[in-house]
């Protein structure tokens, strides 16, 4: 479904990504782990069209998309939930959701999508008229996910969905990711919480200073000594 070949990104003099190869097959949950500054967010930025790669090629559903605009890719179902949620604080919960499905036909279908989101996140339904900026961190993450779902993603990318959330909320977010996946959405996700991410991921990639240093199934990575020491906090 997604194929990244030899991807490179440079910011001025800094090589943020170099020679990255990555594939995501239809129906998979794939997770990226790595330290801060390893290039995980840059990778999702490049795939989503927000960052222009300086080398390499990206293909989505068999078609080349390198250098395409983010707005165009979102309309094709390649949707990113950005780091830090980035809900529109000055808009109501409902308006945030409408924007998530902005490019889709209005009317009954949109209503149905919104009902589905409210079904998944009942808290959002209670607060639909409230300004998004007044929601708690966990609720904002729910809104960011719900907003992405309004665009009917085929490949949903998430950048640190559990960042800064209380443990109970983290568990809820992972539960929701699993439910979204069960509905047939392919998932590519970045997580600091490597243990939780590897537990639900089919495959994972480990990034270090802009390169993929390790890849394998979720179980393989979780039992790899280097991963355990560096990312799972085991000795």
């Amino acid at each position, binding site marked *: 479904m997604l194929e990244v070949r030899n991807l490179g990104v440079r910011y001025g003099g800094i090589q943020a990504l170099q020679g990255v190869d990555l594939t995501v097959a239809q129906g998979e949950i794939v997770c990226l782990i790595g330290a801060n500054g390893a290039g995980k967010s840059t990778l999702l930025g490049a795939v*989503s069209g927000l960052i222009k790669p300086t080398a390499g090629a990206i293909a989505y559903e068999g078609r080349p998309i390198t250098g395409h605009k*983010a707005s*165009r890719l979102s309309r094709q179902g390649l949707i990113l939930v950005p780091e830090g949620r980035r809900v529109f604080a000055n*808009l109501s919960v409902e308006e945030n959701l409408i*924007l998530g499905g902005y490019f889709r036909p*209005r009317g009954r279908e949109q209503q149905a999508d919104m009902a589905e989101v409210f079904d998944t996140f009942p808290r959002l339904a209670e607060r639909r008229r409230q300004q998004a900026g007044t929601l708690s961190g966990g609720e904002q993450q729910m809104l960011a996910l719900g907003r992405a779902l309004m665009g009917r993603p085929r490949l949903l990318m998430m950048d640190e969905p559990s960042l800064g959330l209380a443990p109970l909320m983290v568990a809820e977010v992972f539960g929701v990711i699993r439910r979204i996946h069960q509905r047939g959405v392919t998932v590519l996700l970045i997580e600091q919480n490597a243990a939780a991410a590897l537990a639900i991921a089919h495959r994972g990639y480990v990034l270090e200073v802009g390169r993929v240093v390790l890849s394998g199934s979720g179980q393989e990575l979780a039992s790899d000594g280097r991963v355990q020491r560096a990312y799972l906090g085991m000795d």
Partner: protein
Amino acid sequence: MDGTQFLQQIINGLTLGSLYALIAIGYTMVYGILRLINFAHGDVLMVGCYLAWFGAVQFGLPWWAALVGSMALTALLGVLIDQGAYRPLRTAPRISALITAIGVSFFLENLGLVIFGGRPKAFERPEIFNQLYQIGELRVLSHSVWVPIITALVLAGLLWMIYRTRLGMAMRALSRDLVTVQLMGIDTNRVVAITFAIGSALAAAGGIFWAMKYPQINPLMGVLPGLKAFVAAVLGGIGNVVGAVLGGLVLGFCEIMLVALWPEMAGYRDALAFVLLIGFLLFRPTGILGQELPS
């Protein structure tokens, strides 16, 4: 000053304030979305006036056709300025775009001098705006009645668009977060272009009604109304459309009252706007309706 004179000045203030408001809306909308003070806005207004003049005088169009045609072409000019001058700098530091705006301003002024010449051209007030109503001692020009009405209609239309349509929703979202809006599948360049089109069309309208009040136009005519509308936008709380109208009215009333109450101070009339600006920047930098600035 007796009652009639006072009422007379209120009407004058309302007319002048409405003109500032029409122009200030364009400043505030562009600022709201891009955090850019488009200093070329006043000069866009000047081009709008010349377009209307050409329409009316050279092509003999009726006033309303000249007005609408000028608004449409000026909207196009605004979009072209954004695409040519500002879009390449969208991710550059804000000061670069600001300096570019000043450059565009000088460019338009001098281009105007080359093409139109420096000699002012007479701008006719159409019959409908030239009726004089006499109510007792009070004398009111129909222009003074129409301008506030048009401004009120424009404001109502804009508020409807911003708060009741999907495009307005996209604009409000974009004003907060230019990057995330793209992830919603929204073409930000298109939304920005529409914003420039609306702001520039309103600048043309404001300029044309301005020219009907002081019935001549010249290539530098946009400078002062442009700067004062900028002050009005800041007074009201820049980025806020209602604030722009409010700021325009406050500025209009203050100017008129200064001249009415202290005629010997009339020469300081233009300076008043900038005194107000400095005062607001010192004591209430977010303007009348401004909120705390998001960090």
